[in-house]
């Protein structure tokens, strides 16, 4: 058996590799220090072939550019540098020229109309080896250019993270732009805002099922605040829980089977669970003080919640059966609205900081807290499905509006009509 030894130096890492020629290759590596660096990608516009409507090609490229600019693992190399790369028929020479302006990868490809369809071919070349890191062909209706761009951007993120990007995800929220508080939905970037309810009542605190098929929210439709389940695709609305008292702050378990919520049905506000099919509720908390805003951990075994049991609102965590309660927020007198990232490590929440509400993240393992200071009041955070962005409501320009901060920490305002708040974010529906 031959053993082959390579040594590669990767940034600050010294990586030793031993490859042996068995049925699959074994490699030996040592890691010593943490860090997640971005990869530098040159992404000149894809080549538009003759016969492709200019507006379709423009829609596609503009959407792709905006997605890649927000993609967490990717740093798009500045376009003005691209003109410094002189063309050459020899790939190894051309790749070297791209590398000399700082690119590690080059995205290239074509956009063409074939029949009534849009066909996009995209390739990502590793400029060090000259090998493809990714190559795929997409075909869709000519009007679906933005969807194709989002799909490609998602796939490019997966090349570097193992998980699809967030660019086909959707954010549901509450808006009063029509005169009453209704449930709305939009794409991750604020496109395609659609009204989901026309109840002329008061809708509050929506939450997605993890498969993106259902929303559970609180509505005063029948007088008192009750829980409803909406299936937007079918326009189907079902009363889930209405046994009196205030019922709010629903959160659906990762397997989609169980809804946790806060209810005052027995007097004090406590946390209960109920099957997504309805039926009897089970009480999880019994402490004095208010227990509310449950949020399922991605593993389905824990629930974070807000409790005033120690005086001021703080975040706690319990097992899904209500046992093993421990506090997770420290360092300020106020924390609420805790929601998990998919990694089960980070919790986003709202805290009070120098007189205003601000978003903070808490590491559930170390309980280390990071405040994200921003103008105005910033509340109701939730992570994007793959954890690289946070959506929240902010009154920094007057009325509350939905914002996201992308992976670069850059805020994007997604809404502007009426008051908009209570975002809930879900990935692409199955």
């Amino acid at each position, binding site marked *: 058996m031959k053993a*082959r*030894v*390579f*040594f*590669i*130096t*990767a*940034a600050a*890492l010294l*990586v030793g*590799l031993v*490859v042996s*020629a*068995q*049925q*699959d*290759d074994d*490699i*030996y*590596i*040592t*890691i*010593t220090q*943490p*860090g*997640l660096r971005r*990869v530098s990608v040159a992404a000149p516009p894809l080549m538009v072939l003759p016969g492709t409507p200019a507006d379709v090609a423009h829609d596609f490229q503009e959407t792709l550019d905006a997605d890649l600019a927000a993609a967490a693992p990717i740093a798009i190399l500045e376009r003005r540098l691209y003109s410094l790369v002189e063309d050459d028929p020899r*790939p*190894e020479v051309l790749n070297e020229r791209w590398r000399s302006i700082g690119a590690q*990868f080059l995205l290239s490809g074509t956009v063409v109309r074939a029949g009534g369809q849009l066909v996009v*071919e995209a*390739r990502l070349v*590793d400029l*060090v*080896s*000259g*090998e*493809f*890191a990714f*190559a*795929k*062909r*997409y*075909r*869709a209706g000519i009007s*679906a250019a933005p*969807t*194709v761009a989002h*799909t490609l951007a998602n796939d490019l993120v*997966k*090349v*570097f*993270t*193992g998980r699809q990007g967030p660019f*086909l995800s959707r954010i549901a929220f509450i808006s009063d732009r029509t005169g009453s508080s209704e449930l709305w939905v939009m794409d991750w970037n604020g496109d395609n805002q659609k009204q989901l309810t026309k109840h002329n009542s008061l809708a509050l605190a929506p939450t997605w099922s993890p498969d993106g098929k259902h929303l559970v929210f609180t509505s005063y439709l029948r007088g008192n605040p009750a829980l409803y389940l909406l299936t937007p695709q079918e326009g189907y609305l079902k009363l889930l829980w209405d046994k009196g008292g205030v019922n709010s702050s629903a959160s659906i378990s990762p397997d989609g089977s169980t809804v946790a919520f806060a209810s005052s049905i027995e007097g004090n506000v406590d946390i209960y669970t109920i099957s997504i099919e309805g039926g009897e509720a089970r009480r999880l908390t019994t402490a004095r003080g208010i227990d509310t805003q449950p949020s399922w951990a991605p593993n389905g075994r824990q629930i974070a919640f807000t409790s005033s049991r120690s005086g001021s609102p703080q975040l706690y965590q319990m097992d899904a059966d209500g046992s093993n309660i421990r506090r997770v927020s420290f360092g300020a007198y106020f924390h609420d609205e805790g929601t998990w990232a998919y*990694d*089960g*490590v980070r919790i986003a929440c709202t805290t009070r900081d120098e007189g205003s509400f601000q978003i903070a993240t808490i590491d559930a393992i*170390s309980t280390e807290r990071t405040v994200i200071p921003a103008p105005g009041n910033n509340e109701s955070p939730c992570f994007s499905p793959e954890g690289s962005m946070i959506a929240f409501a902010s009154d920094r320009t007057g009325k509350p509006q939905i914002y996201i901060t992308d992976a670069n920490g850059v805020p994007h305002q997604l809404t502007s009509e009426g008051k908009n708040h209570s975002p809930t974010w879900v990935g*692409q529906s199955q």
Partner: protein
Amino acid sequence: MAAPEQEETPRPTPVPAPAGGGAGLSVGGDNGKQIPGIPSDFHFAYYVQRMLALIESRWYKPAVPAGTKALVRFTIDREGRLSRIELESSSGNSSFDRAALRAMYGANPLPPLPPAYAKPSLTVHLTFSE
């Protein structure tokens, strides 16, 4: 909006290596004529760097004496999914061992294996060291 129809484009034909170069890891089984060589011959350095970064970002090291080392073995399939995650050699400190295994569970799935890598899986022996 329905998802666009997608297909993997035909797997790129490996470009014949220029003189002095090599096809890197693709040499393992079906292409054994390639001679292993210098670092630039390893065609999937980007993948290894990315893999390490993703695992490191999920690694919560407990405080242990310098020189503590645990060896973990795992197999990556073409889609990036991990299997056979095993402690190959204990550090002698169970919390350090568990932190290494947890980093692996947290990093699953890794990115899909490079399309030009012809084999169905890759087995990695990873040393976590303090």
